[in-house]
């Protein structure tokens, strides 16, 4: 379980996250939503120890993040950043193998178990057939699946995704949401920054709504996602109706 305790993060003089207390639930999909610049990506990076806290701390299983060794932490949680850098010429297989970094020996040699996990991850994300192809030669959707396979190969209890759907067309977005649900079904805790509010409502169990570095509301989408909230947080006039398929709330702006 992961939580923050009076977490404050600033870049120079600019405070991005201010005195935040938040507990994220185990085994659920939590979506972080909020307008641009509200600090949701910064929070995600702080949870992954990429951003250092100026004050307060992040706790993982009631231990401060700082008490974990680098590899040890990477065996507990993984993060897929929003901007992905694909090294020139790298194959899908190789990329997914990088997911085993926290486990392998000093010389970067993969054991049999690592290899099995790598091929299982590629199967699950349906990229096995591209394993020898260069990642850069794939389509956007395939490429994103290859990166997800890397995260799966890392085999962590907590998986964090920063706007994983940004550059995908709709069908691939839905595909990715389903992959997220599959992760949850295997007992993983998923924390995801999402841009699309309706997708957040439909696919997450728990919403965390942020504005200007603070959490404005959190809870199940049904409780939290209201017309008032959209007005307050997003300055958006919208009608909230039931999703005709999943029965979750969805908004239609006007």
């Amino acid at each position, binding site marked *: 379980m992961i939580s923050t305790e009076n977490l404050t993060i600033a870049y120079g003089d600019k405070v991005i996250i201010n005195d935040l207390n938040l507990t994220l639930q185990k085994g659920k999909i939590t979506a972080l939503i909020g307008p641009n610049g509200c600090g949701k990506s910064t929070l995600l*990076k702080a949870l*992954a*120890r*990429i951003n250092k806290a100026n004050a307060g701390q992040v706790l993982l299983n009631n231990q401060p993040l700082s008490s974990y060794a*680098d*590899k*040890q*932490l*990477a*065996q507990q*949680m*993984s*993060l897929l*950043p929003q*901007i*992905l*850098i694909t*090294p*020139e*010429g*790298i194959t899908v297989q190789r990329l997914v193998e*990088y*997911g085993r*970094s*926290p486990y*392998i020996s*000093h*010389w*970067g040699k993969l054991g049999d178990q690592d290899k099995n996990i790598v091929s299982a991850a590629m199967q699950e994300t349906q990229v096995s057939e591209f394993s*020898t192809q260069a990642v850069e030669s794939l389509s956007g959707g395939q490429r994103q699946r290859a990166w997800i396979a890397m995260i799966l190969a*890392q085999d962590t209890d907590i998986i964090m995704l920063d706007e994983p759907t940004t550059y995908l067309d709709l069908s691939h977005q839905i595909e990715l949401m389903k992959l997220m649900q599959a992760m949850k079904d295997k007992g993983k805790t998923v924390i995801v920054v999402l841009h699309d509010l309706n997708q957040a409502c439909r696919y997450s169990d728990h919403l965390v709504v942020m504005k200007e570095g603070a959490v404005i509301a959190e809870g199940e989408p049904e409780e939290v996602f209201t017309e008032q909230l959209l007005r307050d947080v997003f300055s958006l006039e919208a009608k909230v109706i039931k999703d005709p398929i999943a029965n979750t709330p969805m908004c239609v702006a006007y």
Partner: protein
Amino acid sequence: MKTMKLPSLYFFILSSLVLLFAITSLFVGASDISIADIIHTLFEQGEYDFIINQYRLPRIFLALGVGAGLGLSGALIQGVIRNPLASPDLMGISAGAGLAATTLLVFYAAAPVYLLLLTALSGGLIAAAIILFIAYKTRPTPMRLALIGIAISTFLSSGIDFLMIVNPIEINTAMVWLTGSLWGRNWTQVPLIWGTLAVIIPFAFWLAWRLDVMGLGEDCATSLGIRPSKLQLMALLTAVILASISVAVAGTIAFIGLLAPHLARMLFGHHHKYLIPSSALLGGLMLIIADTLARGLQPPLELPAGVLTSLIGAPYFIFLLQRYKAW
């Protein structure tokens, strides 16, 4: 599509070339010695004992070791800074080591080898610290970092010139050494460079996988359990040690640290598992060719090997700069 067999083939060809030129180098020089005499001298004793065993043979080992050190240093710097224009000489590390060592030689011409080594190393470290500090403050583009490096390098070199001008008597030793020459070296320097390589090459292989993962960006590397700042520091420190010791042994030999890793990348792709050994091999190959030519072009006159490497390296660097259009 690269198959698994290609790298081993390339490695075989490369190693054979290194061996070939190392042997050729034994036959080239101011004195004309027949093949039979050379073989005789190598395995027994002969009248040419001094020239072969005390002069040409150590030079071969030095050229291979220093070239390998420079190539490896360049591969590590390029790998960690993610900048194709980076290399120990272009970033002022070689000049820093050179300035420190010249200062020592000017004031203490009979300095023992280990002292020269330590002095060069501190010079290299200081120069690296300066450029890293500037890079950290200004976050330059690859192109700008190269320019900053060249500026610092030139500044340090002018310091060397200054020392030479105000101390014209002591200039001789320093001068020959500085142009990057293997002239007048003997067995005393051989264990220095090879000992360093023996320690550092395994460590470089340890870095290989981590440097590859760094290619995914700092955020990704962190989340995969690799701390970028720590890795960068370790790799750079290794590169500075290699470059400084190379300078202490053979003076400033330009462009091998830039050229060898580039060629290695073209032949072997981007995996450091291959880049590290191939950059070292290519560096060794380049310097042994340069040194053989330096001795063989116009005997008994001898050119410094560093002049020859610059002849090839400088145009290539200009070519690289051309490819970087974004200023």
